[in-house]
């Protein structure tokens, strides 16, 4: 009969101790993979460690420099191996090996040596091979070596070829590192060094592969999909599949191909689909046949103009534009962003090898981008104001000045470009270099204040929270006694600037959240259930977490899905006394830090995609975070409602938050709306 322990073991995967040394190593390695690295900790902690626990600090630094190798054994091993390499090869064995068709470098030379009865050593064979930079740098060898680290990964030859052609020196360095060599500055040569970690080079090659797929297929597919959506809506003439079907297939193939399980077939499927999409995008939109005499009968319609995804290169100005006019400022922003992109592309193509340098270079670029974006957002606000004033002055949509309409339209298109081409790659890079997450990095750079929990009656509030079974965990307020009766287990303050906890009338807890959208949200109650009702009633758009039967976790509105918390060090804080916390990075962001970009980067219509704000190519919708509205349908209540909806949909985009935080900073704080539990929006 099964014991409880054995049942538990069966459920948890067993508690068997590893038997062999290899199993033991595997187990520890898997535990280690969950441990944070130096760069995962905030700098202030690392400094604190250096000052207060120098011994531990030194140990940690040594680990991250050498990846925990064991010099003596390795030296011994290398020496012994060297001895073996110098022993003459047994001719019979060599002949047997060659007959067995085993791979050997310079096979012809070996065969000739056998004929000449020369006393070959294995070292002779290897030297000929290892001295040859052609081998190490060959696409074949790089592919083989990559397979050593990513056994399931298909690496298209063209990806490596194109990189090698573009950046020969960088390619050479990476190829050598991947093969286990390290450059010795003293001797000026490449030495075999098992103490360096070729995994970094493998990860870099994987990133090169992903970039290649992104540039070659994904971007082109995205562009065509946007054109198809705009031109045909959901139904493409003469095609059974809808646009939504195509997008879904595209997204799934894209995710597959940027993962580490990409296969030759999955790439071929993506390639084929992109070819199809390009064809569909060029397809003519069906229109009623012109009646005779209408002229131009039978002439094909010019294809609908594509949304420009980049600032028009080489475009000449039609007329002189004053630099401080709205149009002039827009042109200047476009130019600035384009210049920044050149720098960022150069950085991506050749990022500093060491993590510290990479982070510094990234931060500088990030700050520069933020500054430019701030200027750009200010322009959008001014355009908004101008439009509103024109409306107040009695102008209807039709009567709006043409220049203004055009500018609004151009801004929308440019937003798409900024989202896709600048922000997504920027965020992807950030996720790679900052496992602690987006918000930590922003905090580190002083870009956004930390969420502040203010409580004047802290003792009372804490006591009441204890009594109610509510506590702060990192950046979430969690109901620890959540059971079947509770649907919302916690609320997060991802998009909050300030969280205020108050005690109302002795036994009522009041949680006031100032969101980065400029709104205040208030939830109150004597029990979590009552608070939950308030949360349910409100349109609080940030991370609220609903517990589903069966252990799944879903947001209240089914839009935001978060994995159960497994905190990174930067977020980890189970102390209920924590009063400050950075807005937590979502789990999606965390997983995106791994070498394999995750679904976050899917440019689909999912609410969590950071590209949402900008990718939307549907002309009917309003696409800017600051509410620049589409001409024609603009400035009406309907448009504003839609803008609100869009803004809510885009809450999880950190870029939107930057934009909103800029906006929110200028807005007066709204008063509580006690009746509804939600404040009247101030925007």
């Amino acid at each position, binding site marked *: 009969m099964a014991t409880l322990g054995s049942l538990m073991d069966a459920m948890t995967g067993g508690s068997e101790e590893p038997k062999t040394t290899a199993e033991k190593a595997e187990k520890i390695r898997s535990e280690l993979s969950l441990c944070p690295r130096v760069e995962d900790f905030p700098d202030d902690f690392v400094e604190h460690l250096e000052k207060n626990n120098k011994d531990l600090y030194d140990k940690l630094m040594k680990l991250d420099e050498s990846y925990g190798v*064991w010099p003596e054994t390795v030296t011994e091993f290398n020496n012994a191996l060297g001895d073996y*390499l110098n022993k003459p090869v047994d001719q019979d064995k060599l002949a047997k090996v060659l007959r067995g068709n085993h791979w050997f470098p310079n096979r012809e030379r070996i065969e000739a040596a056998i004929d000449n009865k020369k006393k070959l050593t294995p070292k002779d064979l290897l030297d000929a091979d290892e001295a040859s930079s052609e081998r190490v740098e060959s696409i074949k060898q790089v592919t083989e070596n990559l397979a050593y680290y990513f056994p399931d990964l298909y690496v298209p030859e063209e990806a490596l070829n194109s990189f090698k052609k573009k950046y020969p020196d960088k390619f050479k360095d990476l190829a050598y590192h991947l093969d286990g060599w390290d450059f010795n500055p003293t001797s000026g040569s490449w030495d075999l060094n*098992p103490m360096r970690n070729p995994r970094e080079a493998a990860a870099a090659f994987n990133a090169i592969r992903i970039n290649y797929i992104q540039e070659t297929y994904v971007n082109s597919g995205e562009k065509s999909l946007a054109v198809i959506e705009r031109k045909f809506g959901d139904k493409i003439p003469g095609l059974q599949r809808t646009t939504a079907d195509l997008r879904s297939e595209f997204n799934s193939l894209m995710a597959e191909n940027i993962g580490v399980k990409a296969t030759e077939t999955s790439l071929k499927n993506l390639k084929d689909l992109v070819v199809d999409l390009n064809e569909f995008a060029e397809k003519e939109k069906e229109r009623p046949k012109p009646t005779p005499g209408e002229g131009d009968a039978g002439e094909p319609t010019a294809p609908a103009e594509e949304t420009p995804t980049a600032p028009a290169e080489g475009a000449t100005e039609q007329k002189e534009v004053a630099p401080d006019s709205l149009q002039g400022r827009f042109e200047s922003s476009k130019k600035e962003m384009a210049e920044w992109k050149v720098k960022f592309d150069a950085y991506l193509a050749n990022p500093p090898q060491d993590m510290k340098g990479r982070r510094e270079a990234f931060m500088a670029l990030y700050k520069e981008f933020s500054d430019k974006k701030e200027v750009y957002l200010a322009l959008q606000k001014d355009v908004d104001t101008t439009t509103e004033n024109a409306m107040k002055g009695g102008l209807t949509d039709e009567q709006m000045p043409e220049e203004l309409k055009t500018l609004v339209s151009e801004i929308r298109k440019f937003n798409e470009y900024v989202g896709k081409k600048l922000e997504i790659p920027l965020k992807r890079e950030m996720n790679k270099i900052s496992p602690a997450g987006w918000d930590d990095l922003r905090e580190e750079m002083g870009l956004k204040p930390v969420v502040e929990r203010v409580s004047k009656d802290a003792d009372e509030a804490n006591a009441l929270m204890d009594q109610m079974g509510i506590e702060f965990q990192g950046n979430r307020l969690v109901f620890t006694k959540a059971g079947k009766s509770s649907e919302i287990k916690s609320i997060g303050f991802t998009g909050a600037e300030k969280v205020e906890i108050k005690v109302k009338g002795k036994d009522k807890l009041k949680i006031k959240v100032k969101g980065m959208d400029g709104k205040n949200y208030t939830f109150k109650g004597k029990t979590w259930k009552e608070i939950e009702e308030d949360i349910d009633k409100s349109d609080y758009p940030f991370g609220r977490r609903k517990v589903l039967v069966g252990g799944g976790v879903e947001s209240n509105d089914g839009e935001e899905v978060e994995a159960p918390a497994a905190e990174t060090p930067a977020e980890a804080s189970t102390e209920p006394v924590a009063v400050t916390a950075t807005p937590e990075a979502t789990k999606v962001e965390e997983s995106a830090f791994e070498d394999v970009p995750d679904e976050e980067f899917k440019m689909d219509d999912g609410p969590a995609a950071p590209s949402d704000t900008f990718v939307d190519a549907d002309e009917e919708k309003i696409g800017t975070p600051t509410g620049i509205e589409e001409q024609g349908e603009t400035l009406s209540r309907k448009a504003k409602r839609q803008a609100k909806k869009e803004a809510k949909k885009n809450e999880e985009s950190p870029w939107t938050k930057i934009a909103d935080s800029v906006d929110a900073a200028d807005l007066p704080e709204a008063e509580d709306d006690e009746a509804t539990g939600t404040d009247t929006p101030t925007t």
Partner: protein
Amino acid sequence: MPTVDSVLQLARSIALLSPAQLRRIETVVHFMSDEDLKQLEDMLLKLQEDEVKQLEKELEVRKQVESEYKEYKADKARTTLQAKEKSARDEDTQEAESLLNNM
């Protein structure tokens, strides 16, 4: 007695041997006498054991750092809380004093 295959398998299970290092082993094993092969296997086993020891040490250090971090974060949070509470108390005191003065 170890075979070429078993030694190769062992070498391949040692994760931190680079492809080039492994290639060296793959080259020599085919020409080794049985005695040398045994010696190589012993060396690899030693290397593997050392790998485990080293990994254990690494794990220990990383866990220590993690726990230091938690402690550091909690301390920081406590300090902030105390400062805020103090500030709130000062505010209350001031209010009380002001009330008294106005009475």
